């Protein structure tokens, strides 16, 4: 079968869905590759490069009619969709929720459409998750774009010409784009703060080197796993608390990157006009949600504006396209992985398996039917968090009460043990003669001293401890020494053996301890 990639028709779109590299991989799957002349030019791949990779360079019309599978980036125009033929497969971003008329055209043409933006978020499908790969680029680019419009260094420096404070970057929304932005900002040396409504991402944020902006709010948060890894819309109270926090941060931060988006909804307004006004002149806001209205109240989609107080607001919506080479490479790889799943036999024949979670999820029209929305995937997107028993925050009073109770318990225990021990000793003392008691006192005190001393021995020295105690327990040699002088032969022999064995132990034990201890070296 033939797989073809046309030139993108949308204005300003520089990406391409097939690169010479991905074409080679597709050929290994048994496909013949076609590309429209000039399709990859904007992304840095000329026709010659495609030809070299064994791709047939054809005209646009020939491509749409010859290719059994058409792979592209943007959703097709109505005209393009109209040229789809029965049984032809289209793979592209499709946004089916917003593009119902387009979906109907595809259905009427009996074409099979696979929407790259509908690939379910499960581990197996990560390799074809084009939204994530594009979001990653957008996140990176947003920081670069901010830096481009920001008049200072990101990193703090102390130079001969004076001290430069580091830039302070706030990233709102720690999805894929947000995390990419955090990573880029921290590696440029900025102090990075990040906020997300999902408390479980705090760990991810911190792992990227940013500081999680903690919000004092005890609303029961929806587990991100229940919504396929996306944030759920939050309550008005929570939003207020969130905005208050941002208002507090606004005068401090130099760069704000907002990435808060919930699928199929308008972007929530998180950075209001008064926050923009509170910011320092020269600050930059990059709004990655501009396409859906923007997280910042003043954002103008596709434009860069400057406010009266000198704050630049970047509302571009084509960040991935601004890095066309990189995004084409990643997107074409996503497509290639999708094709791998569609070609189980690697024989160049598409098997459109509607039982497969990933393929079913991404398919929006199939054999003249609209198959959107898909049923929920059989595999849970992200392992649900085990229901944590909420660690109860104790009030200081409760803590104090607990401490007191613990202390009391300890005291009772100790006093109890002492009483029992004392009682036992007294009982022994009642019957035992004084000469025994003298030794007994020594014994009890030694046990006591032993317990006190041994608890302090460091764990790493337990083996030397055993060797030392072993050596000194050979103190039993004293007994043998006292007896060896006896005038009974048996006693003498037994005592002699005792001395021999004990002295083996004394010397062996101490020497081996010294050997071991000498090995412990500090770095």
């Amino acid at each position, binding site marked *: 079968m033939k797989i073809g990639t046309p030139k993108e028709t949308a204005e300003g779109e520089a990406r391409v869905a097939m690169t010479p590299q991905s074409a080679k991989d597709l050929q290994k799957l048994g496909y013949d590759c076609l590309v429209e002349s000039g399709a990859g030019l904007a992304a840095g791949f000329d026709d010659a490069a495609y030809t070299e990779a064994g791709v047939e360079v054809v005209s646009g019309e020939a491509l749409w009619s010859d290719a059994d599978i058409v792979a592209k980036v943007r959703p097709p125009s109505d005209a393009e969709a109209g040229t789809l033929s029965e049984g032809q497969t289209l793979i592209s971003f499709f946004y089916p929720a917003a593009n119902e008329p387009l979906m109907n055209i595809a259905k009427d043409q009996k074409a099979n459409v696979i929407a790259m933006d509908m690939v379910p978020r499960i581990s197996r499908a990560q390799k074809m998750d084009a939204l994530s790969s594009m979001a990653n680029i957008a996140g990176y680019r947003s920081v670069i774009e901010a830096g481009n419009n920001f008049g200072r260094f990101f990193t703090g420096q102390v130079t001969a010409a004076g001290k430069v404070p580091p830039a302070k970057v706030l990233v709102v929304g720690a999805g894929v784009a947000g995390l990419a932005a955090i990573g880029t900002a921290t590696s440029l040396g900025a102090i990075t703060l990040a906020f997300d409504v999902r408390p479980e991402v705090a760990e991810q944020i911190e792992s990227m080197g940013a500081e999680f902006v903690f919000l004092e709010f005890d609303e029961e948060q929806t587990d991100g796993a229940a919504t396929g890894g996306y944030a759920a819309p939050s309550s008005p109270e929570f939003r207020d608390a969130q905005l208050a926090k941002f208002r507090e941060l606004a005068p401090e931060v130099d760069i704000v990157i907002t990435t808060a988006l919930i699928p199929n909804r308008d972007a929530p307004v998180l950075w209001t006009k008064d926050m923009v006004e509170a910011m320092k002149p020269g600050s930059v806001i990059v709004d990655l949600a501009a396409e859906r209205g923007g997280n910042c109240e003043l954002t103008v989609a596709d434009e860069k504006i400057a406010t009266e107080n000198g704050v630049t607001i970047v509302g571009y919506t084509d960040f991935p396209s601004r890095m066309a080479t990189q995004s084409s490479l990643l997107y074409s790889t996503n497509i290639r992985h999708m094709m791998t799943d569609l070609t189980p036999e690697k024989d160049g024949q598409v098997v459109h398996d509607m039982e497969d979670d990933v393929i079913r999820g991404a398919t929006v029209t199939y054999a003249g039917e609209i198959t959107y929305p898909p049923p929920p995937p059989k595999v849970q997107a992200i392992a649900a968090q085990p229901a944590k028993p909420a660690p109860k925050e104790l009030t200081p009073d409760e803590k104090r009460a607990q401490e007191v109770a613990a202390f009391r318990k300890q005291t009772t225990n100790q006093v109890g043990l002492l009483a029992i021990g004392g009682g036992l000793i007294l009982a022994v003392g009642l019957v035992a*003669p004084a000469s*025994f008691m003298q*030794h007994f006192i020594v*014994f009890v005190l*030694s*046990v006591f001293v*032993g317990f006190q001393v041994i608890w*302090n*021995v*460091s*764990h*790493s*020295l*337990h*083996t*030397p401890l*055993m060797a*030392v*105690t072993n*050596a*000194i*327990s050979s*103190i*039993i*040699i*004293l*007994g*043998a*020494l*006292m*007896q*060896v*002088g*006896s*005038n*009974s032969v*048996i*006693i*003498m022999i*037994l005592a*002699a053996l*005792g*001395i021999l*064995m*004990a002295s*083996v132990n004394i*010397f*062996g*034990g*101490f020497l*081996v*301890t*010294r050997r*071991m*201890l*000498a*090995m*412990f070296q*500090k*770095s």
Partner: protein
Amino acid sequence: MDFGFTTAAYVVAGVLFILSLGGLSGQESAKRAVWYGIVGMAIAVLATLIGPGAGLWILSIVLVAAGAAVGYQLATRVEMTQMPELVAIMHSLVGLAAVFVGFNADIMINMVSGVYADAGRVLGAVAEDGYTAIGLPNDVFKELSAFGQLVAKKTAVEITILRVELVLGIWIGAVTFTGSVVAYGKLSGNSSLLPFKIDTAAKQLPGGHLLNAAAAALSLVLLIMYLSGAGSWTLVLLALAAFFIGYHLIMGIGGADMPVVVSMLNSYSGWAAAAIGFSLGNDLLIVVGALVGSSGAILSYIMCKAMNRSFVSVILGGFGGGGGAQMAVEGEQIAIDADGVVAALADADSVIIVPGYGMAVAQAQQSVSELTRKMRTAGKEVRFAIHPVAGRLPGHMNVLLAEAKVPYDIVLEMDEINDDFPETDVVIVIGSNDIVNPAAQDDPNSPIAGMPVLEVWKAKQVFVSKRGQGTGYSGIENPLFYKENTRMFYGDAKVSVDSLLPKME
């Protein structure tokens, strides 16, 4: 005949011994502390030789010298991986010495009472004035050895107590002796020097713990018979019963529980010394015996706590039956080759190595040390996490790593490092299994549920160096091996680590 000087020397020695144990709280002070112990021992032995043990100087010194020679050979030749065996076999010597000294005490009592009988008196009888009637002619008394004189001065009650004490000394000593020999056999496995081989698995004669209980009951009966004057043969039988208990008890305990067993035997050897100290009326023996006994007891306690098992359940052998089915483990073990491990290590900033008994078996500590050195040279943070029961002896891993010149300040114990796993890039598990088993926390039905474990699975990536796919000593499936961030690096630990080294440049 009192020896004021000897007692003074004993006080000094006792203080030195306490300081010696106390000094083990830190690596540097420990190097000084061991000298305190040596000096203490020298003072004690010399004081005894000058004082009450003045009988046969030449024989004593020759024997001590011979013992020293053997001890020196043992101490300098032993491999650090064989430390557990060495400690075990040394315990057996203390135990046997205690048995001998105990028997001697009995023989001495008999002899002294014989002397009394010859003189027409009864040992321990009370004179009309209420005091002990030594009643022996002075020249007969003088002829007795120092210990004999001590015995001769005792009252009847004191003689009885003396007998109880020496029975305790013999009994504990005998249990320690056979127990330690068996423990040695189990620990040394194939390299055992014993003429017979001991299976490392937990094995018992038919009848199990009933046999032990019967032997213990028999000992008690024998004790009563002995006290009521049945004669020395009861003592011999009693020792045999104790020998049997020591043998059978430790036979019933598996190889991996040996840390507890060895520390328990350590404790017993101390108590035996203390009991003998009572019977000889020697305070230094009592002091040291008590110190050693409590030290061993604490070690056993720490070990048991680290396995979340009660002391009794360890001694009675085997794992207590966990109710209910264990969680089934899903997923598969994914293997990785040396190149993959090296690549991950090259990317990692922080690495934690978790060594276990497998490292000791494979003698891989030098290779691990070399790997550590290379990674540290490359600027990575490398640390070691030691579980309290890793290996076959408390602190076993620390000694092995120290031998391989791993600096001790990067070797941390469980509590110090457990919180750091989430921030760690790579964890390398070498030859340990149960101590990194997440089932201990996740699965209430697991036999090791509640045992504190190293939370290695929280790290970003875990490599497990392991010989094969088998389960650990406890026979429990380890869900760690099936986790998504775990890769199995199969093969002998030393060979595996060595294969990494040339690629680590």
